[in-house]
């Protein structure tokens, strides 16, 4: 019987890829090739030869290693794409969604705070109306009544003007919500773009939040610390105008 290993080496087989290292499919392909070379006149080998010919005729077996390599490469590429997608979503979308959550929380708390301030103002206003009514009905000299009513009317005017101030929450929370909407639109556009990478059928026109869209609102608008922020504005404007006038 032929020494297959020596024969293989004689044909320079060592220069080829090691079928053992390549795995079973490669080993099977190599076995078929070697068996084809065996002298088929040996009667004992006739059955082996038949089997070899049968196996060799099944081209799919010989193509299996190549097919597996192709599939492996495709799966690796797909996994790489998914990993990249996950990392990109982690880096962009998750942080933005967390930021959106924080902004919506702020809208909720500032709306509640403004509503409470308005309710307080209305309570005070009703108290002042009661006071005016009581002064008119019960009391004292005409001068005392007039003074009491006038003082209450002045206080009532301040309360009502204060209500106008509290209603500014509407403008401020609208700007906060526009900021949150802008973030969500941005995340949606990025997710669409990523989906299109994996499946081009998902591709649609994507628009990222543009500078123009952001120009009509201030996402950082806030009802908080208005007095401190006004003090900073006063100081900054005063200095800037002073510099401007001295440079003229």
């Amino acid at each position: 019987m032929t020494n297959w290993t020596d024969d293989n080496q004689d044909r320079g087989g060592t220069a080829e890829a090691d079928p053992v290292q390549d795995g079973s499919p490669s080993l099977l392909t190599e076995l078929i090739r070697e068996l084809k070379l065996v002298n088929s006149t040996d009667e004992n080998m006739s059955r082996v030869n038949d089997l070899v010919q049968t196996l060799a005729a099944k081209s799919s077996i010989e193509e299996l290693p190549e097919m597996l390599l192709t599939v492996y490469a495709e799966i690796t590429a797909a996994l790489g794409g998914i990993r990249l997608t996950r990392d990109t979503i982690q880096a962009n979308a998750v942080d933005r969604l967390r930021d959106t959550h924080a902004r919506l929380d702020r809208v909720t708390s500032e709306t509640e705070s403004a509503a409470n301030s308005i309710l307080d103002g209305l309570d005070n206003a009703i108290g002042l109306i009661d006071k005016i009514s009581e002064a008119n009905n019960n009391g004292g000299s005409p001068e005392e009544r007039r003074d009491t009513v006038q003082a209450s009317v002045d206080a009532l005017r301040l309360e009502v003007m204060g209500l106008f101030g509290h209603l500014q929450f509407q403008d401020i929370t609208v700007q906060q919500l526009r900021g949150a909407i802008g973030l969500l639109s941005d995340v949606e556009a990025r997710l669409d773009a990523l989906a299109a990478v994996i499946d081009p059928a998902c591709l649609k026109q994507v628009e990222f939040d543009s500078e123009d869209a952001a120009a009509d609102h201030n996402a950082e608008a806030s009802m908080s610390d208005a007095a401190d922020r006004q003090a900073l504005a006063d100081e900054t404007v005063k200095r800037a105008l002073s510099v401007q006038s001295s440079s003229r």
Partner: protein
Amino acid sequence: MKCLVVDDSATMRRIVSNALKSIGHTDLLEAGDGTEALEHADSSIDLVITDWNMPNMGGLELVQELRKRDETAETPILMVTTRSIKEDILEAAQAGVNSYIVKPFTPQTLKEKIDEVVD
């Protein structure tokens, strides 16, 4: 005194207008953005009160445009805005605003600033 109130929020225009009326200023004009404000802006305007963030033409651009025009180059301008970081305030001052009010504001603050900028 004739005041031009510029804000894209109808609620804010109403709030500012009410605050102005409460301190005795009843001759008011309103505009929803900088472009509309420029249509009204002439030498008859004694005070401009403008928001910053608006569509079409924002408050900063409006201020720069008003300062370029002879008839409004010296008109007092109050910026009333939610923007309150130092860089923004400086930018507005350099563009030509006379005073700056941070939202939310009180009618008292509005009165003080008007008294500061109007002779």
